[in-house]
């Protein structure tokens, strides 16, 4: 079983990396979005590996099923310039710089792992759903409510912006 977990981890990592590269390198916005969706899927798989199927499913339900579709909707509704390619291809310098920036946190984490103690490998345990809920509304109640307030504010702001644009027209 442990071998299988390694194989799965490898696959998920591959998916995440492919998706990430697609999201960065694709010149068509929709393809980049597909890359993002792939990444989100890979992350959901990693949650599964960490014995958090609830979070994994929520990731798919919310990020893939709702957020990315909204992004896609927004892309479809904006008038992109003629031709399917939305951005000029810039390979040599800027992308190298981007790569360097991407590898920076990796280097930092790698350094920390090398210098510090690596936690022993313990098979993850699944947290029951009820316990998860209890945690959210008891010790982390304030954070939970704050997030919902922020979301409400964001939604109201979006609506106001939308109305303003319509009136402007």
């Amino acid at each position, binding site marked *: 079983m442990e071998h299988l977990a390694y194989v799965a981890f490898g696959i998920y990592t591959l998916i995440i990396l492919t998706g990430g590269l697609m999201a960065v390198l694709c010149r068509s916005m929709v393809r980049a979005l597909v890359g993002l969706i792939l990444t989100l899927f890979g992350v959901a798989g990693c949650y599964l590996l960490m014995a958090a199927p609830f979070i994994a499913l929520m990731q798919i339900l919310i990020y893939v099923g709702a957020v990315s579709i909204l992004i896609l909707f927004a892309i479809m509704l904006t008038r992109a310039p*003629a*031709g399917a390619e939305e951005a000029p291809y810039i390979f040599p310098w800027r992308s190298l710089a981007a790569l360097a920036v991407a590898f920076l946190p990796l280097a930092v984490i790698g350094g920390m792992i090398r210098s510090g103690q690596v936690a022993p490998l313990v098979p993850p345990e699944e947290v029951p759903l009820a316990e998860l809920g209890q945690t959210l509304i008891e010790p982390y109640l304030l954070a939970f409510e704050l997030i919902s307030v922020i979301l409400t504010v964001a939604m109201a702001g979006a609506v106001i912006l939308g109305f303003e644009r319509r009136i402007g027209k």
Partner: protein
Amino acid sequence: MLHYAHEQLQGDYYTRAFQAGAQEDTLIINMGPQHPSTHGVLRIILELHGEYILRAEPVLGYVHRMQEKMGEVKTYPQYLANMGRVDYLHALAWNWAYVRAVEQLLELEVPERAEYVRVITCELNRITSHLLWWGAYLLDLGAFTPIMYGFADRERAMDLLQIITGSRLTYCYYTFGGVTADLTPQFIDGTKDFCKYMRTRLPMYKDLVTDNMILRHRVDDIGIISVDMARRYGVTGPNLRGSGVEHDLRRNTPYSIYDRFDFEIPAYEECDALARYLVRMDEMEQSISIIEQAIQSLPEGPVMPPKMPKVIKPPKGEAYGEVEGARGVIGIHVISDGTATPYRIKLRAPSFSNLSLFAEVSKGILLADAVSILGSLDLVIPEIDR
């Protein structure tokens, strides 16, 4: 939205002309020439903002056959066969309009029985036309079943017409002075049965379809055609009666023997697609009533005048044959120069005038409503293009 606006997709003459007037941030789409809800080869270029139509322009001529030129090179009887092809759904009305025009030129008296036969068959044909419209309109609205019911009922009427005319769709039955064949007892019995049958069907259609809530919401209050607009565009027929004007040539200038029958001219004041729908549904009932009365009082006698000229050579002059077709006033303007071929024939197609208002009526409505309005106008494309 045009993320794929490639050079090679620039479109033809009409698209380019239409694009020249387009605003920013809009989507131009072609509805047709091949489109499920244009019922034939009609093309409408639409400028959409989201799903709202900013501008619409019908493009005609895809089934244009130059009927009017044909009229100038064929003799009067030869051209008669063309009339059934102009409007294949109410072919007998076009037959009648042409025959009336030539009869006016020739000053021919039509025997009484022939007039009755014409009334019976023309009304039967009107019912078939309305039934087909009914089914096709609901198909436009996304209901798949009514067209099957409409077709099945229409089939019965067409079988009846086939007995006496010999054809099913593009009839060439009326002729100058009368009709080509007399009614048979089989037809008369069958027509009586059909009237009885339709009287049971129409209430069922009302229950099943007309009173359906979704349908009501789809057709209510869309495609408003005011009386003034109808006047400016020359809208006639059920479309006009849906605007509350009780204009019907069968009543206003009673031709043939329509003044002998007791029937109503259904009219609704709402001016919307629902009103036009209801007018047509009521008209079928009135047609049944006319057919029943005509069969009741069908006189004996010949169906052709006793002596007919061998060659049809009307004297110089002009005539305007008008008939109330299923779609409105059909008018055929014939100018004769005294020879065996007409000098000029002008066909006034009701659908042509009815469609011409589409550009005005479709401003600012939803795409789905445009389909609904287009259906409610009851267009026959060969009639528009002629």
